[in-house]
């Protein structure tokens, strides 16, 4: 049992180390997040009233796309250098390693996005009452996005052009999170209670936590055997 925990910790540490050594991968999703969000005022309208109405959805869509963008790298380098084979030949449960990798990945993508989100909120004139809702919903929603994304990443890891494909596979599955996430922000803006939305986001997170690592583990096994 303790060796299992040890593996969880070691993998977590390893993936964080790897992420910090590849600086560009670390900041790219964040930059993407900022750029996507600033496209809307430029492309649609810079009018504050209009933007503040759209802001909850825009920030969420941008966060979703940024997470998606960063997902592709989750298993890619491990697949290419053979680490993934070693991982699959471990007598320890694979889903645990997957969970650990997703956690490390989320800390540097989802959590980072959550922290930067208020900046986008200000850029898009999101009323300040909406900020807590924005951060809370992102905090609960982005891990689900990472977990679901891990399944897509695992399914496409062996393919040369997996990048577009992964979005095709994963985006439809993101829709519920998007709906409840942006609704939570909207509710916060209008002063309605948030608990319901957050509970739903939490429930989805729980479900994803239980099932996604297993599905991703199975998908990795399939991809590597191909």
């Amino acid at each position: 049992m303790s060796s299992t925990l040890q593996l969880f910790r070691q993998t977590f540490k390893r993936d964080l180390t790897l992420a910090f050594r590849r600086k560009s991968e670390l900041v790219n999703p964040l930059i993407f997040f900022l750029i996507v969000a600033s496209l809307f005022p430029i492309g649609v309208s810079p009018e504050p009233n209009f933007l503040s109405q759209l802001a909850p959805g825009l920030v969420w869509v941008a966060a979703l796309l940024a997470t998606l963008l960063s997902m592709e790298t989750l298993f890619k380098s491990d697949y290419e250098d053979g680490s993934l084979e070693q991982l699959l030949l471990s007598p320890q449960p694979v889903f645990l390693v997957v969970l650990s990798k997703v956690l490390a990945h989320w800390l540097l993508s989802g959590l980072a996005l959550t922290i930067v989100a208020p900046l986008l909120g200000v850029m898009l004139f999101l009323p300040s009452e909406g900020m807590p809702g924005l951060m809370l919903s992102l905090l609960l929603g982005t891990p689900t996005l990472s977990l679901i994304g891990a399944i897509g990443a695992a399914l496409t890891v062996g393919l040369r052009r997996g990048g577009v494909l992964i979005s095709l596979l994963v985006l439809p599955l993101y829709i519920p999170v998007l709906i409840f996430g942006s609704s939570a922000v909207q509710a916060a803006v209008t002063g309605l209670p948030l608990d319901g939305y957050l509970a739903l986001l939490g429930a989805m997170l729980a479900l994803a936590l239980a099932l996604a690592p297993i599905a991703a583990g199975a998908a990795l096994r399939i991809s590597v055997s191909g």
Partner: protein
Amino acid sequence: MASSWLPRWFYQLASPRWCYSITGKLIPWFAATGGLLFLVGLIWGLAFAPSDYQQGNSFRIIYLHVPTAILAQSFYMMMAIAGAIGLIWKMKVADMVAKSVAPLGAALAVLALATGAIWGKPTWGSWWVWDARLTSMLVLLFLYLGVMALNSAIESETTAAKSTAVLALVGLVNIPIIKYSVEWWNTLHQPATFKLTEKPAMPAEMWIPLLVMVIALYLLFGLAMMLRLRNEILRRERRAGWVKELLGS
């Protein structure tokens, strides 16, 4: 095949050869009854069923829209379950069923969306409305497209079958969540408008032809599925002795 508690037909199903011959026998029956019921349902629905007191005769689109929507969903279920059977019991035929079903399901989803949109024009005054049913059907179509894209992107057939099975299962878990969230989102954004199909207590002369159409389409698309399955079996089993025998003579 380690476990032995499953009924015999289950193992027979696992044999491509048996499957090929049984579908060969079933196809004429499906074609005959499906075609007949389709004609009956079509004429009944178009000419004999009473028109709706609110929507008038555009209501008759229901006899196509609802069956295709039902089938699109149940075909997804079938695809995911067949995929799961293929994953768990390594049953080749199940993989082939899953692969044959996917394009048909996508076609059904497209048809349901198209008829919904056409129906929407006289009812809502616009071709597209983000109605809960249409939206979740759209997402279902996306799920189908994802499955098909993944299947065609992977070269190895066995890997493709397994990967798509995993994706289809993940989608299956998500379908109720998507449905629920879309419905809920819909009521939040547009308070109760005119729904396409929800009618309290439809009279019998309206729903019986609907039932006939549902059964007819099940049979016809079942037929299409079996035709695709047979092609798939031939293609994959091309080296097996029985295929050579069958085609050689």
